[in-house]
């Protein structure tokens, strides 16, 4: 149970302060959940480079975890271009052009992998938007688009890895944030596992990421995958999905979870509540709209 937010700037030539925008939007709806906060931020990509982020903790085991990751990187011939240890995570930018899924599964033996992408970087931890911003300097992130999430844990644990955004391990550059509850989780999970997809948590929201990754991996367009999700997923949901070039939403047929949308020539912003949108435009009355029940849409950077 949560609050979600997403923003995409249409101008593809420039970078925008997406980190700061998402911190503001999530702070605006923090009342929807204070257990954890997370961000999926998309930066400009450099061909041949991958961004990796791992949970390595901030304790005695941290150095060893980073050591294990470095060994695996070496094993795969990935050259570290840039790296840092920040908060509970280790971030690295590497040069790598092999099979990303195999690479990801191997890296998980080193430490808990949070995300891989040519432009995606997922940052999530326990605490509020401001807490996570302080620990990870979210506000300094420049990029083109991103999604974020505040969480009130209802069934699964409160720990960094149970925070949103989720991704489908091994599928680069796809992230989702979800508000609601998927009630056919186990049935769908078993179906996807039979097709060789792996799950890393028991959080129902991870299912959405895996489901969409499976669709996209078969060459299905994101918009079509979202349409499919409304039929296939059971329960209540308003979710946002992002890839390296797109951002999209889907909303269940009962319209049980809120979502509100603002679009201008410059940007598209989506959030659980209008109060988050107004954080970007204080003092203004926005011409917003509420997506219809059972609807979905996508926006691409290249508009």
């Amino acid at each position, binding site marked *: 149970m949560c609050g979600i937010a997403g923003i995409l700037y249409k101008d593809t030539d420039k970078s925008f302060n997406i980190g700061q925008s998402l911190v503001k939007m999530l702070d605006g709806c923090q009342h929807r*959940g204070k257990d954890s906060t997370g961000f999926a931020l998309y930066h400009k990509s450099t061909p041949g480079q991958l961004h990796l982020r791992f949970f390595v903790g901030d304790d005695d085991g941290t150095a060893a975890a980073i050591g294990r990751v470095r060994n695996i990187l070496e094993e795969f011939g990935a050259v570290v271009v840039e790296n840092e240890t920040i908060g509970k995570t280790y971030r690295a930018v590497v040069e790598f052009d092999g099979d990303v899924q195999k690479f990801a599964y191997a890296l998980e033996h080193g430490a808990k992998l949070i995300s891989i992408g040519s432009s995606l970087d997922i940052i999530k931890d326990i605490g509020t938007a401001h807490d996570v911003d302080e620990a990870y300097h979210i506000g300094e992130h420049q990029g083109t688009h991103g999604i974020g999430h505040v969480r009130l844990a209802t069934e699964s644990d409160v720990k960094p890895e149970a925070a949103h955004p989720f991704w489908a391990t091994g599928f680069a550059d796809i992230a989702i944030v979800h508000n*609601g509850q998927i009630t056919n989780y186990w049935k769908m999970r078993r179906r996807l596992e039979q097709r060789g997809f792996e799950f890393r948590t028991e959080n129902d929201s991870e299912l959405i990421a895996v489901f969409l990754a499976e669709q996209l991996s078969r060459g299905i367009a994101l918009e079509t995958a979202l349409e499919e999700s409304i039929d296939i997923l059971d329960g209540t949901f308003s979710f946002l999905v992002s890839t390296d070039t797109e951002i999209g939403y889907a909303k269940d047929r009962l319209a049980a979870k809120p979502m509100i949308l603002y679009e201008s020539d410059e940007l598209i912003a989506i959030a659980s*509540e209008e109060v988050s949108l107004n954080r970007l435009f204080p*003092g203004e009355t926005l011409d917003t709209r509420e997506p*219809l*029940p059972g609807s979905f849409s996508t926006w691409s950077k290249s508009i």
Partner: protein
Amino acid sequence: MVKVDLAKISVTEANERIRVAGENGEDVEVFNPDARHHIGVGLIHPINVRVNGSAGYFCAGLTDGPNFTIDGNVGWGVGDNMYQGSVVVSGNASAIPAVAIRGADIVIKGNIGSRAGQVMKAGTLCCGRNANFMAGYMMYGGRIIILGDSGERLGEDMTGGSIYLGGKIQSLGTDAKVVDLDSDELDSIRQFLDQYELPFNGSFQKVVNAGEHLRYKGIEERVRPMPFHTFSGTHAYWNAKIQEDIHIKSRTGRYRVRGYGAARLMPHLSDLAFRADVAATDDDDVLSKVNLRTVIGDKYGAKPLDLSMPVMIAPMSFGALSRSTKVAMALASSMSGISENTGEGGVLDAQREAADQLIFQCLAGRLGWNIRDMLRADALEIYISQGAKPGFGGQLMAKKVTEELAAIRGIPPGIDLRSPSRHPDVLGADDLAIKIEEFREATAYKIPISVKLGAGRIRDDIKIAMKVGFDFVELDGSQGSTGASSADVLEYVGVPTLAAIEGALNGLADIDCSGQLPIVLMGGVMDGIDAAKALALGADCTAVGTAAIIAGGCIACMQCHVGSCVVGIATQDPEHEKRYKVQQEALHVHHFLESMRWQIASIAHANGYDDVKQLNRNDLVALTPEAAEVTGLEYAPELREREQQRLPANWKYEFAVR
């Protein structure tokens, strides 16, 4: 004109200023609202409030009298539960505009979100453009005017009221139909549109309830009266109760409806015992030696309930019970220095006067819910579910839905009322946090807010209750009774009280919050011994419903749902109610409560304590393997014989009648 700038002050501070302006009869203008929630909630004076920009959730909610103008959009639940007054919104409204209104004009010039007018009872909701999914869902009265098109399932399960549609009907909901409208109605609509300057030249279609779902089909006849001990007899194969169930189903072709709770044998408080031989005490003066005072509800700074002992009267509605019974319960609660609870049916003036401390319950149907009674309550309680039928709404059969009762609840008289099971504005924990905030804003953070939870997935739910900011939890197990429910639900759906408290305590321990959320345990607490066991297990307080009713004259015939209770308790029939002697039964209930006080004090004293809060799990053992398994207490079958004499003759009752 009072100016309030939300760029400079918090909503809480703004609401305080708006309240003061209301008292002084001054109008208010709000600047920089930026879609913040709860603007102007709880206002009970007829002033004008202008909001310059978009407002968030529950703008103008829980109000009676003011006129709001909002120059922008609004979030969920604009005008929530408004009685008199108006709200005019220039932009769009998100979900459930005009939810549960009891009067008032709510005008949205743009589009409206899903479930518009859910459980509204009176007044007008008008939408200038298009409506969304399930407009008029479960509405009980009033009218919705939509100048554009409807969404899907228009008028889904509406019970009363009318929907007038200027555009296309996308699809009709269950039990809704299109009928002709007469010229008077049309005139009234035109007048309304003129008043709010909404130009419209088209024609209207009218949608009303089709009446297929208002009443149960087939009258349920009782085969023969059966006392509770026979009814709950579980040893006999094809026993009398099972036969009776089958007889009834063979006549109606559906599940049986009855009162009371689960009658199956399941592990209960009576399967636990104190290690110490508490019956051996012969001290005449235990009451002066043990502190029983229980203060509950001040976790977030509200004025707490101050109980003379850890016992409350459990929530029971005026509706399920007669007015006389509710007044007797209120009187008894005051005589014993504890609290009374309204249950679903709203506050009766006589009950409010008689009860020193009254908890006001808010249910999904918002039947009898209103700001004025909120402000005169001592605590509020958001009902999520009850132990007897977790996940289900209440049932009140037609015979009990009298003119008076229907007026208080704002529903059509004479229907088989099936209350909704789900709050219109609480579809998740996130929404619940916002709802609690609305109540706190409306009552200036002065009144404790609790939650009634019928144990289901309690280990998860208690964590939510902890996180979203309740002051305390009323936790109910399946041995708790109800006025009417499907017998199959009563027997097979709930979680036993013992398992409920264990799940709750474990849930709080999971998130390192043990002891941080007071728990009031109820559901088959029969006397002070059960109460003491509940407290030792980890509850902070207990509540008695059925036991109090029995003390006040109930003969446990379990015909509560029928409405012709022979002792005048579970009835709205004045002839039957006459049999109930309020003062006398109030005294009986009081005497019973005092016996509980004496028992709780004696047990605490026998365990060597001078404060009831010192009772703890180490004082208890389990007498059956099942109870040991559920609770994790030591299994001590050797104590079974001693415990078979539940109320030894040498136990003395000492009570002072005030």
